[in-house]
C-alpha cells in the first residue's frame, strides 16, 4: 500500500483517435467474449465440420452457408450488440460523468461490430476454400449449382458477401441503434422479431420488391422431378445485379450506424448529411440492382 501511495506523475490524457481506438478495442473484446456470440460460433462450427467430413463443397446449394452466418452471427449479434450497448445503463452516473461522451461510446460499439463481420468473413472464406477443394455438385451431379462454374465470379462473390459477412455486420449495427433509441430490456426481443419479420416479408413479394429486405435472398434452390428421381438445382436469381445489392446493404449498414449516433445531440449536422448521402446511395444502388 505504501508503494501505491507514493507520488507518481499523473499521465497526461489523450483525447480523440487514441481514445476511440482504445475504447473500440475494449468493446470488440467484450463482443468477442460474449457468451451468446460464442454460442453462435460454436453452433456454426457444426455444419462447417459436417461439410468437411462429407467433402461435398457445400452441397447442391453452397449459399445455404450464408443462412447460418446471417442467423447465428447476424441475428445473435444483434442481441449481443444490444446488450453491450445497454450494459452501461447499470453504471449510468459513472459513465455520464466520464469525459468520453456517449456518442463516442456508440461509435466504438459500431466499430466493435467489425468482430462479427470478421467472423462472417472467416466463414465465407471457409466456404470458398471448401468449394475450391471439393467443388460443389448438384444432386444428381448433372444438376446445376449457383457457383463459379456457371456464373461470373464477381456475382457469386458479391452474393456471398452480401448474404454472409454484411448480414453479420448489419445485424449488430442495428442492435446498437435499437439499444440507443429504445434502451429497455424487451427491445432486443422486439427488434429481433421485427428484423426477422421484415426480412421474410419481402421474400414473398414479386421481384424486384423481394430484394428490398435486410437479407435479400439472391439464390433460388428448387427441386425438379427427373428420370432418376428428384434433381436439386440452385441458381442466382435472374434480373438482379448482386454487386448493387451489396452496395444497397452496405448503405443500410451505414444508415444503422448513423441512426445510432444520431441519438445524441453532438455532430447532428454532419451525421444528418451522412445519413442523407447513405439513403440516396441505398436508393440508387437498389434501383441499379433491379433495373
Amino acid at each position, binding site marked *: 500500500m505504501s508503494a*501505491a501511495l507514493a507520488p507518481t506523475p499523473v499521465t497526461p*490524457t*489523450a483525447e480523440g483517435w487514441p481514445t476511440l481506438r*482504445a475504447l473500440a478495442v475494449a468493446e470488440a473484446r467484450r463482443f468477442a467474449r460474449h457468451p451468446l456470440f460464442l454460442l453462435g460460433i460454436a453452433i456454426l462450427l457444426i455444419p462447417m465440420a459436417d461439410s468437411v467430413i462429407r467433402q461435398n463443397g457445400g452441397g447442391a446449394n453452397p449459399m445455404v452457408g450464408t443462412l447460418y452466418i446471417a442467423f447465428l452471427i447476424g441475428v445473435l449479434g444483434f442481441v449481443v450488440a444490444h446488450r453491450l450497448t445497454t450494459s452501461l445503463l447499470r453504471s449510468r452516473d*459513472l459513465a455520464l460523468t466520464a469525459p468520453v461522451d456517449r456518442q463516442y461510446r456508440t461509435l466504438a460499439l459500431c466499430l466493435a461490430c467489425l468482430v462479427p463481420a470478421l467472423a462472417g468473413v472467416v466463414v465465407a472464406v471457409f466456404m470458398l476454400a471448401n468449394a475450391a477443394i471439393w467443388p460443389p455438385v448438384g444432386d444428381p451431379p448433372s444438376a446445376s449449382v449457383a457457383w463459379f462454374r456457371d456464373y461470373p465470379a464477381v456475382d457469386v462473390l458479391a452474393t456471398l458477401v452480401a448474404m454472409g459477412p454484411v448480414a453479420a455486420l448489419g445485424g449488430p449495427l442495428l442492435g446498437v441503434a435499437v439499444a440507443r433509441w429504445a434502451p429497455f430490456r424487451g427491445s432486443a426481443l422486439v427488434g429481433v422479431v421485427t428484423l426477422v419479420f421484415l426480412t421474410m416479408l419481402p421474400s414473398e413479394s414479386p421481384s424486384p420488391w423481394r430484394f428490398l429486405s435486410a437479407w435479400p435472398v439472391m439464390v433460388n434452390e428448387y427441386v425438379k422431378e427427373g428420370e432418376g428421381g428428384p434433381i436439386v438445382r440452385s441458381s442466382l436469381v435472374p434480373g438482379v445485379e448482386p454487386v448493387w445489392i451489396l452496395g444497397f446493404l452496405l448503405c443500410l449498414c451505414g444508415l444503422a450506424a448513423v441512426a445510432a449516433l444520431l441519438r445524441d445531440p453532438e455532430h447532428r449536422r454532419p451525421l444528418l448529411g451522412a445519413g442523407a448521402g447513405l439513403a440516396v446511395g441505398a436508393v440508387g444502388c437498389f434501383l441499379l440492382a433491379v433495373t
Partner: protein
Amino acid sequence: MTTITLDGIGKTYGRVAALTEVDLALSSGITGLLGPNGAGKTTMLRILATALAADRGEVRVLGEDPATPAGRVAVRRRLGYVPQETGFPRGFTTFSFVDYMAILKEWSDAATRHDEVRRVLDLVGLSDLGTKRVQALSGGQRRRVVLAQAMLGRPDLLVLDEPTAGLDPAQRGRLRDVLGRAGESATVLISTHQTEDVAALCERVVVLDGGRVLFDGTVDTMIAGAASRVWMGAERHPAAQHAWRTGTGRFRNVGDPPRGAELIEPALEDAYLLLVGDAARDAGLEAVS
C-alpha cells in the same frame, strides 16, 4: 483558493424542491456533507459531478461552467465521482471494469493505463481480486471498486456520495487514510450519514436540510454549538430531543438540560442532532404562527 462556487442553486423534481437557493464556496481540503434523508445532498453532489443540471443559479466547478458542453468535459477530466448507488455491467472482472472506466477517462495508452489501474486497486486494497467478477464481490468490495475508479488519475475534485456505506471498520480506516492524503491537494466533498467519519476526516462541514444550507463551518464550531446541551442521566429525560441508553446502563441525553445535569463533552453527532432538531422545531413554530 475557491474551487467550487454555488450561487443561488435550485433544483426541483416535479413539485418537490430538492435544493432551494443554495450558496456555497469550497476550496481544497475535505468537506463533509451531512443531512437527513431527502435533504438534497445527492442532488447537490450530482450537480457538482455534472450528472445533473441545476434549474436555477450559477455553478462554477474548478473554474469551469458545467452548464456548457466544453465546461462539462473540462470538469469531468479532473473529477472523481462515487455515486450513492451504482450497478455494474455483467461480465466485467474487477480489473477490467476499472480499466474500462480508465478508457472512458481518456487513458488511451494500454501500458500506462494498466499501471494506473493496478495503483488504484492497490490503493483500495483490491489488488488480489483483480481477476474476480465484479458481480461476485461483496457489497463492501464493490463499493471499493467504485472508489478505485474515482481515484484514477489523481483527480483535483473528488465527489463521494456515502463512500463508507457497507465498509467494515478496517476498510473505513484505510479509506480515511486514502482520502486524507487525497485531501492534501484536492477538493474532496464527502456526503455521509457517518458523523464519526466527518469528525475524523473533515476540516469543514456543511449541513443540508430541506434543500437549504443549515450550517457551514468548521467541525469544531459545529461541536461548540452543542456545548452544555449533552448530559448523562439515570433515565431518559423528557426534555431531551434525543436520548439513548449507553453501554454503561446510563442514558445519554441531547437537548436542553435541566439544572444540575451532569454535562459531558458533545460529539459531532450530538451537534448534528441538535442542529436538525432545532431547525425542525423552528419550522414547526413558524408554521403554527
